[in-house]
C-alpha cells in the first residue's frame, strides 16, 4: 500500500513528517487536516489574531476604569482573586461620558456631517469624470485612468500638505486672487471646514472614480441607443437607463469615501478647525494626551458601532460585484 493510500492526499509529505515529527501530533494533523484546510487556516489565523482579537481587547478596555498613574493606565477588568474567584469589573462610565459630554456630541455630529457632505461633493465631481472616461476611446481611456491613479500612488500625506501651501493666508490661491485684483484681503481658508471638505474630496476622489468607472464601463451601449431610438432624449435616457444601472457603483464609491472619512485624522489635523474637532482627533487626544485608554477605547467602539451598518452594506456590494465578475 503506498503512503498515499494510507494517509490521504499528501501522503509522501506526511510520511516525511511522521519520520521526523512527533508521531502523535502528525497523526492528529493527518486525520483532521488536509492541504486545503491548512491554506484556509493561515490567513484566517492571522486575521483572527491581529484583526479580530484586537477589537475584543478594545471592547474589554472600554469597560475598564481609568487609573491615571497606572502602567498601563487602566484597572484590570478581569482579576483572579485569592479565593479562586474571578472578579469582573465593567464600567460604562466612558460610554456615558461620550454621549453626554458636549465636546463629544458635537464631534460626532460634525464628523458625520463632514463625511456626508464630502461624499456628496466627491460624487458630484467624480461621477461626470468617471462617465467621461468610460465614454472615451480606449487609448485616451487608459491615459485618463493612469492620470487618476498617479496621484493615488504618491503620498497621501504630501498631497494634503500641498493644500496647506495653496490655502494659507499667504498661499498660492490668495496670492493669485490678490494679484488679479479679485480680492483685496486674503481669504481665511486654512483651518476651516471648507479646507477639510477640499482635503477629503481631493484625497478620496480616486476611490470614488474607480468603482464608478468599473461599473459604467460595463454598461451596454446598445441599451442607451435603444432608449433613444424609442424617443427618450439624452437627459432622459441618462436618468432612466444609465443612472439606475450605475447604482451599485455609486453605493460602492460613496461608502468607500464616507466610512473612512468619518474616522479621518490627518486631514482635520493639518487643514481643519481647531475649535471643532472630528472624532478621530478626540480619540487620539484621549489616548496620547490624556492617556485615558478606557475612554479612547470607548470612542473606538462607538465609532465602530456607528459604522458597522455602512460597512456591512459595503461588503454586500463588494460581494455582488465579485459574483458578477465571475465567468
Amino acid at each position, binding site marked *: 500500500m503506498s503512503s498515499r493510500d494510507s494517509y490521504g492526499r499528501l501522503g509522501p509529505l506526511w510520511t516525511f513528517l511522521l519520520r521526523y515529527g512527533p508521531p502523535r501530533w502528525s497523526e492528529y494533523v493527518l486525520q483532521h487536516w488536509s492541504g486545503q484546510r491548512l491554506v484556509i487556516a493561515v490567513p484566517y489565523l492571522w486575521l483572527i489574531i491581529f484583526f479580530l482579537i484586537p477589537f475584543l481587547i478594545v471592547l474589554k478596555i472600554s469597560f475598564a476604569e481609568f487609573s491615571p498613574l497606572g502602567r498601563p493606565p487602566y484597572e484590570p477588568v478581569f482579576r483572579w482573586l485569592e479565593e479562586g474567584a474571578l472578579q469582573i469589573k465593567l464600567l460604562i462610565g466612558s460610554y456615558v461620558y461620550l454621549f453626554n459630554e458636549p465636546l463629544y456630541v458635537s464631534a460626532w455630529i460634525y464628523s458625520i456631517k463632514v463625511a456626508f457632505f464630502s461624499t456628496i461633493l466627491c460624487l458630484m465631481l467624480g461621477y*461626470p469624470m468617471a462617465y467621461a472616461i468610460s465614454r472615451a476611446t480606449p487609448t485616451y481611456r487608459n491615459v485618463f485612468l493612469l492620470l487618476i491613479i498617479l496621484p493615488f500612488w504618491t503620498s497621501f500625506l504630501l498631497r494634503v500638505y500641498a493644500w496647506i501651501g495653496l490655502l494659507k493666508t499667504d498661499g498660492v490661491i490668495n496670492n493669485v486672487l490678490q494679484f488679479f485684483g479679485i480680492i483685496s484681503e486674503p481669504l481665511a481658508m486654512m483651518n476651516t471646514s471648507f479646507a477639510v471638505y477640499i482635503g477629503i474630496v481631493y484625497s478620496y476622489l480616486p476611490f470614488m472614480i474607480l468603482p464608478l468607472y468599473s461599473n459604467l464601463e460595463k454598461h451596454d451601449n446598445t441599451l442607451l441607443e435603444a432608449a433613444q431610438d424609442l424617443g427618450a432624449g439624452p437627459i432622459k435616457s441618462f436618468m432612466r437607463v444609465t443612472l439606475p444601472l450605475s447604482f451599485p457603483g455609486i453605493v460602492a464609491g460613496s461608502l468607500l469615501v464616507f466610512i473612512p472619512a468619518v474616522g479621518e485624522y490627518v486631514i482635520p489635523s493639518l487643514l481643519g478647525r481647531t475649535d471643532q474637532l472630528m472624532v478621530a482627533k478626540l480619540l487620539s487626544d484621549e489616548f496620547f494626551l490624556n492617556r485615558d485608554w478606557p475612554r479612547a477605547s470607548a470612542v473606538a467602539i462607538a465609532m465602530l458601532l456607528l459604522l458597522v451598518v455602512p460597512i456591512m452594506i459595503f*461588503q454586500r456590494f463588494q460581494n455582488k460585484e*465579485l459574483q458578477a465578475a465571475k465567468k
Partner: protein
Amino acid sequence: MKTQGLFSKTMLGFGFFFLYVPILSMIFFSFNNSRLVTVWDAANSPTLKWYARLFDDGAILSAAWLSIQVAAMSATGAVILGTLSGLVLSRFGPFRGRAILQGLTTAPLVMPEVITGLSMLLLFVSLEQLFQYLFGWQFDRGVATITIAHITFTMAYVTVVVQSRLAGFDDSLEEAALDLGARPAKVFFRITVPLILPAILSGWLLAFTLSWDDLVVTQFVSGPGSNTLPMVIFSRVRLGVSPVVNALATIMVLIVALGVVLSAFLMRRQEQRRKREEQMAATG
C-alpha cells in the same frame, strides 16, 4: 448626447486640474529660494538648495530608509497572506466560517485607521504583558510591530486584487491541470500563480505604497526610536510649510510618475506583440 458629453468632459478637465494643481504647485515651489514657500523669490530662484538640504537631513533619510524596509517586508507578507485568502475565497467551495473570513478580509478596506491603530496597539500591549508573565520577556514596539500592523491592513487590498483577478479567470485551466495528474499544490504554483502574476505584482506595489505612506496606524504601534518617514513629515508640517518637504515630495512624484509611465509603456508593447502574434496565427 452632445450637451451631455460636453458637461462631463468639462468636469473631467476641471477634475484633472483640481487633482494636479496642488502637486504641480508643490513641485514648483520646491525650487523657490524663499523660506516662505509660496512667495516666489524671483531674484534667487530657481534653486536646488532645498534638495541639498534634504540629502543632509539625517532624520528624514534614516526615516526613509526605515520606511522602505518596513514597506518591503510588509508588502511581501501581505502578498503571501492576501494571495492565499484571495485564492480561498474565490476557488474553494463553501466551508464553515467562510463568511467570517470574507468579512475579516474586506473590513480593513474601509475601517478608519484610528480604530485599527488603537486596537493593534492594545493587542501588542496585551501581548507584552502576556509574554512578560509567561516567559519574562520584555519586548519593545518597533519595526516588528509596525510590520505586523501594516501586513494586517494591507493584505485586504491584495486579497481584493487577487480575488477579482481569479474571478475573471477561467478555472478550466486549473481543472485541466488536475485532470492531467497534478496535485492541487502543484496546480497552484505552476498554473495559477504564473497566470495571476501581474495581479500579485500590482498587489505588492499597492501594499508597498500603503505601508510606505501610512501615518495613523504607525503612530499607534511604533516604539521609541522607530520613526517612519510619514511620522517625520507629519511632525514637520504641523508647524507649517517646509521647503525641504516640497523637495522630498517632488522626488517622490517623479519616481512614481516614472514607474507608472514605464509600466504602462511595457504593458502596451506586450499587448501589441501579442495581438500581432494572434493575427499571424489566425491567418497562417
